[in-house]
């Protein structure tokens, strides 16, 4: 429309690449909607752990099934995004991925009482754990954010376990979260989202310690093998 041919080309070329980007974003948005919905379901399923001991096992099973479905979504995501552009579009799935890290790590802890590694979580989502020049992967910061979310949920679980009369779990939680706390202190965080989330960890740890203290002074603390 503009008579200078070269300038015309510059702008139409750019519009084309914008359109391409727009399309990719549309695809991403749809996939994210889907896996976001699944993550919300898992979250709801896992709520049962706060009120019903017996429900934990089945809830984990259900969660595992959902992770399978999420894995498919991540597969599609991996395909949709050009190899070099992971960080260009990251904002779209960042929150959701952090939530999956949280949900997977929580499930694994409920199942086996151990920490899900970066590799394990990535594997469950069917993506790489390595950040390379190109390619879709599980960003280490998202993994760490997920762990912090898990700690908050575990603090809540410690409180509700006692309400349910389970005096055992708070101690397990305490031991586990303290290890994570020691781990997080090894990191140099910038003043970003992860840092803010990390500041919350202190309060989670404090809450858990208070529960353990409450049990101790009432002699409700179970004897463990270690002590």
């Amino acid at each position, binding site marked *: 429309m503009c008579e200078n041919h070269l*300038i015309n080309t510059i*702008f139409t070329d750019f519009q084309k690449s914008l359109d391409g980007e727009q399309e990719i974003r549309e695809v991403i948005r749809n996939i994210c909607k889907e896996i976001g919905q699944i993550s919300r379901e898992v979250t709801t399923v896992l709520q049962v752990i706060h009120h019903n001991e017996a429900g934990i096992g089945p809830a984990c099973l259900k969660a595992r099934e959902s992770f399978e479905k999420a894995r498919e979504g991540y597969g599609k995501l991996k395909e949709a995004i050009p190899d*070099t552009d992971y960080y260009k579009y990251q904002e779209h799935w960042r929150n959701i991925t952090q939530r999956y890290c949280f949900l997977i790590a929580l499930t694994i802890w409920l199942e086996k009482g151990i920490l899900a590694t970066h590799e394990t979580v990535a594997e469950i989502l069917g993506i790489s754990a390595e950040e390379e020049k190109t390619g879709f992967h599980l960003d280490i910061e998202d993994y760490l954010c997920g762990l912090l979310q898990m700690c908050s949920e575990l603090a809540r679980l410690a409180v509700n376990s006692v309400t349910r009369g389970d005096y055992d779990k708070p101690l397990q939680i305490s031991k586990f979260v303290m290890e994570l706390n020691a781990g997080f202190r090894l990191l140099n965080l910038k003043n970003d989202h992860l840092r803010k989330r990390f500041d919350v960890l202190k309060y989670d740890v404090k809450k858990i310690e208070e529960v353990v203290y409450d049990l101790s002074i009432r002699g409700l603390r179970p004897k463990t093998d270690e002590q």
Partner: protein
Amino acid sequence: VARETAISLPADSPVLAIFRAAALKLNDRQDRHERLVKLSRDITIESKRIIFLLHSAITKESQEKTLKEADERFQKLIKGPIRSIGLELENSPAYLHSRAVTAGFQEYIEARTLYSLMATKQIITFPEVVKEFSYTIQSEDGEERTVVTMLPEIDYMLGLTDLTGELMRKAINSISSGDSDECFQACQVVRDMYTGFLGITGNRLLGKKLSVTRANVAKVEMAVYALRVRGGEAPPTLLLPAAPSEWEG
């Protein structure tokens, strides 16, 4: 319990190992980011200076000298900091650090396109700039490999929006140095670019800059208007000494 746990944590705890690995990765990222910010600042300041250099020439002869000097300084940037950015990001995703380098890239494009317009009367295109950012590196073991400094297209376009400001300056300068052709040309380029930007949709950053571009168009149009209004009054044949009274009415 806390203290007990802490004390009882063995040095080879697998949990701690995970975090030690994470700490390394995070530190790497931060260090790399810092190095890139510094490279970007170097590019920014030198590009700004080249732009001033390009404005400084008044006569045709001095312009040629200026263009030559500008070209040499671009080459230094390409072989220096821009190459370093490419090497720095050889094994890391470029977009992860795009915020660290965007300011430098944008200013570079502003300078580079202004130069190309002055030297060739054409705006250097995105693919052409990208081509200049490709390097052949000799490894220590003698093998050659290609490294490319990735320039996001959006940085190129954002640099172009700022170009309209420099062209506006150039146009007004050229009026006062009596070069009305250059002024008309610059005006049309700014107009064409404005028309181009008007048609672009789907990018927030560009949208924000549109009003600045519009202001630049208005300024440059007022400049050529002034040129024309003056000219309208004085057809060349009348450029003879005459008493002011003859010009009345």
